[in-house]
């Protein structure tokens, strides 16, 4: 009898562990978007050995802080591509460029979940502004384009992200940049 109880408790613990594992997997994959990438195999026909990270056009309105941020992203891209066996060059085989766009978005959701329009205590339901919640957040896209020396796009990687309205974009972008460039692999030369 005692043995049975101990066994059933152990089973419950195992089930709980599996549930927690599945829940964490679901949260990890379901909440975050994946890196979307495409390869243009018709243009990726050469043997690529060198690259150059092309900085976005400098604007007069760009603050020193933004310039530093750009330099940081360029350093991340350079390091990642060097780790993949490529070398920097002023006359490269590959031109790497990146772009970020961020927009403020608001989402209005209804707080009233009763499908009948009224509840037991409030027989006559009058909709008011209190029944809706508006949340503001930032959505954006981080994109990396890799072109060959003829200017043809050979690889494009991007990731859509969503941040809380007060969350800093500059704090998250380097991590996203690493993730996107991590999805790039050199094309295998056809035999």
């Amino acid at each position, binding site marked *: 009898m005692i043995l049975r109880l101990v066994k059933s408790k152990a089973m419950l613990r195992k089930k709980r562990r599996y549930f927690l594992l599945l829940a964490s997997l679901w949260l990890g994959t379901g909440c975050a*978007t994946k890196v*979307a990438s*495409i390869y*243009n195999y018709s243009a990726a026909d050469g043997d690529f050995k060198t690259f150059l990270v092309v900085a976005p056009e400098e604007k007069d309105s760009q603050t020193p802080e933004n310039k530093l941020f750009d330099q940081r992203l360029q350093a991340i891209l350079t390091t990642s591509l060097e780790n993949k066996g490529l070398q920097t060059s002023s006359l490269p085989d590959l031109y790497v460029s990146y*772009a*970020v*766009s961020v*927009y403020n*978005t608001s*989402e209005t959701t209804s707080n009233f979940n009763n499908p009948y329009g009224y509840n037991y205590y409030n027989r006559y339901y009058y909709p008011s502004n209190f029944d809706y919640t508006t949340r503001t957040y930032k*959505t954006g*896209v981080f*994109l990396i*384009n890799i072109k060959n020396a003829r*200017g043809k*796009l050979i690889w*494009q990687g*991007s990731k*859509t992200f*969503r941040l809380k309205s007060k969350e800093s974009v500059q704090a998250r972008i380097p991590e996203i940049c690493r993730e996107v460039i991590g999805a790039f692999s050199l094309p295998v030369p056809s035999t």
Partner: protein
Amino acid sequence: MKHPTKPYNDLQASFNTIRVGYRYRLVNYGETSVFEVLEIISNDDCRVRSVDTLEEYRLSDLIKYGKGDDFAFSEE
């Protein structure tokens, strides 16, 4: 290429972050165009295909007469 799923609603887009294989909606001078990006030609231009008519054209064709007050560009 399979059309990627859209993760968030009303995702605004800009011309410098156009993604190949994605669908976009552009509104200009009262005309709405929904298209899929086929190829990026230059930094600001790409070859696209209309989702409704399957006609192929360039993105620059849609804004060659300028941008109207109603101009809007978003991911479909």
